[in-house]
């Protein structure tokens, strides 16, 4: 488009000319982005912890007592592997179990010596998705030879509930703060437009197209979003370290290192800021584009 350089220069210049309003907008937008970012970081970390626990969360499938020969056991293994949502299947013989008891109980176990091994053969299973725990357990029960399953549904439920809650709160927070940011940017651009209504009326009277009138204001919004995104990306890095050490002081957790999150967060902040900036500006300018001459000047 002809004259794009001029329009970009006008948009950027406007941020500087209205620097007080721009600074206020950037301040509020950075706060919104930081709160949104903090919610997202929390959600990502909880998801990661839940996934970690989920991986460790093996369930034990005990076989019926009468299944004792190797041939029958070898038939059950592949059947369990066929069940949906089962990631790993590992055989755990009753000899392994008794040995484990022996090492755990020590002298107490020696008193039980002489008694025949009462433990059943078992499989250790790992699930892909913990939230499908109950369906998977039902499917496993249907496999022939399976007697009982160690019940850990409570842990699974609590973890998936927590994950869902954090994700939902995060989404609501992003939506609410997105609307606030839109309002802030659109207000800032509206102030600029009010101060430049004179120019807009002249632009329209000499035959500037709506694109030409619109672009500098959209660029102003985008620049405000870009600056806010960059500032937020820098601030959140320090904030994250501070938050992690504060949480670690209370609960020992393994956090996702910020270096892993930095590219996603930076792109997210800048992209979100710029999109909000552009939309905010477009909302404000629509009103002026439909006005003519003296109307723009409020006469």
């Amino acid at each position, binding site marked *: 488009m*002809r004259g794009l350089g001029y329009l970009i220069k006008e948009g950027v210049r406007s941020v500087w000319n209205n620097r007080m309003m721009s600074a206020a907008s950037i301040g509020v937008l950075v706060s919104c982005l930081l709160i949104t970012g903090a919610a997202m970081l929390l959600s990502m970390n909880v998801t990661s912890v839940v996934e970690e626990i989920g991986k460790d969360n093996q369930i034990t499938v005990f076989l019926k007592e009468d299944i004792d020969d190797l041939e029958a056991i070898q038939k059950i293994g592949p059947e369990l592997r066929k069940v949906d949502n089962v990631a790993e299947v590992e055989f755990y013989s009753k000899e392994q179990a008794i040995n484990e008891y022996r090492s755990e109980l020590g002298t107490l176990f020696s008193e039980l010596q002489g008694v025949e091994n009462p433990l059943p053969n078992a499989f250790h299973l790992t699930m892909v998705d913990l939230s499908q725990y109950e369906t998977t357990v039902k499917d496993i029960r249907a496999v022939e030879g399976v007697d009982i399953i160690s019940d850990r549904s409570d842990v699974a439920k609590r973890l998936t509930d927590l994950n869902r809650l954090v994700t939902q709160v995060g989404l609501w927070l992003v939506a609410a703060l997105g609307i606030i940011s839109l309002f802030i940017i659109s207000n800032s651009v509206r102030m600029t437009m009010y101060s430049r209504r*004179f*120019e807009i009326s*002249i*632009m329209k009277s*000499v*035959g*500037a197209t709506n694109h*030409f009138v619109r672009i500098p204001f959209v660029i102003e919004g985008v620049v405000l979003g870009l600056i806010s995104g960059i500032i937020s990306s820098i601030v959140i890095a320090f904030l994250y370290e501070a938050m992690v050490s504060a949480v670690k002081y209370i609960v020992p957790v393994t956090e996702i290192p910020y270096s892993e999150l930095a590219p996603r967060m930076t792109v997210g902040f800048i992209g979100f800021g710029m999109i909000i900036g552009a939309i905010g500006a477009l909302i404000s300018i629509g009103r002026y584009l439909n006005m003519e001459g003296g109307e723009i000047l409020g006469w």
Partner: protein
Amino acid sequence: MIRFNNVSKVYPNGTRALNKVNIDIQKGEFVFIVGASGAGKSTFLKLIMKEEEPTSGSIIVNDTNITEMKRRKVPYLRRTMGIVFQDFRLIDKMTVFDNVAFAMRVIGARPKAVKKRVHYILGLVGLKDKAQSRPAELSGGEQQRVSLARALVNNPSLIIADEPTGNIDPEMSFEIIELLNEINKQGTTIIVVTHEHELVHKFKNRVIEIQGGEIMSDTGAPTEKADVKIEIAEEELAEIPEEIAEEIPDVSSEELNREALAAIEDEEAAEE
């Protein structure tokens, strides 16, 4: 150039600004529109600029029925016009040069063409030395000349001046109309809205009087003046020495129109 066919305009609050008006203004005419406040003069101009829509009737500008014109085409209609306002409407924070250049920049003219053309136009209105001044440093008459330069810079075929002498002293007013007369001699159609009857009488131009939204009188185009105009134009052309003619910036109306056409094509391509 401009034709009003039975044009009426009634505002939403019930005010009847124009009532079945018929006007025909030929290309190259200089027309004064006179009348008291609230007579319908401003509405007449707004309808030509398509800032307002008529309630009934049709308006033809440059052989185009603008009452049927699509909204997105309006900017291109306005590029064929130059508007001069009573309150000058200059941007205080810009220099005289930038105020005039602004009108070219916002329609996407090339920086090189802007520089050439603005200097030429400022020379034409006698403000070459004030290019770097701010509007606040100029007298009312000078500010109106800047406003006129801005209206002229895109080489319009029509100049519309809404009370151009309303905010300046009588001597300066005379100068401004003289300047418009000079521009008219180059073939530009001029419409001046004013309520200063005295000023109108000093110039032998067509005068249309509007009262209560109706045409009360129309003197028609003074025929002898048209002949004089042609003579003067021919004399002037003959008087321009070749070396001076070469110095006149080559930003012709054809070039500006080409730029406008290119902008239309860009615009339409973007919209598609």
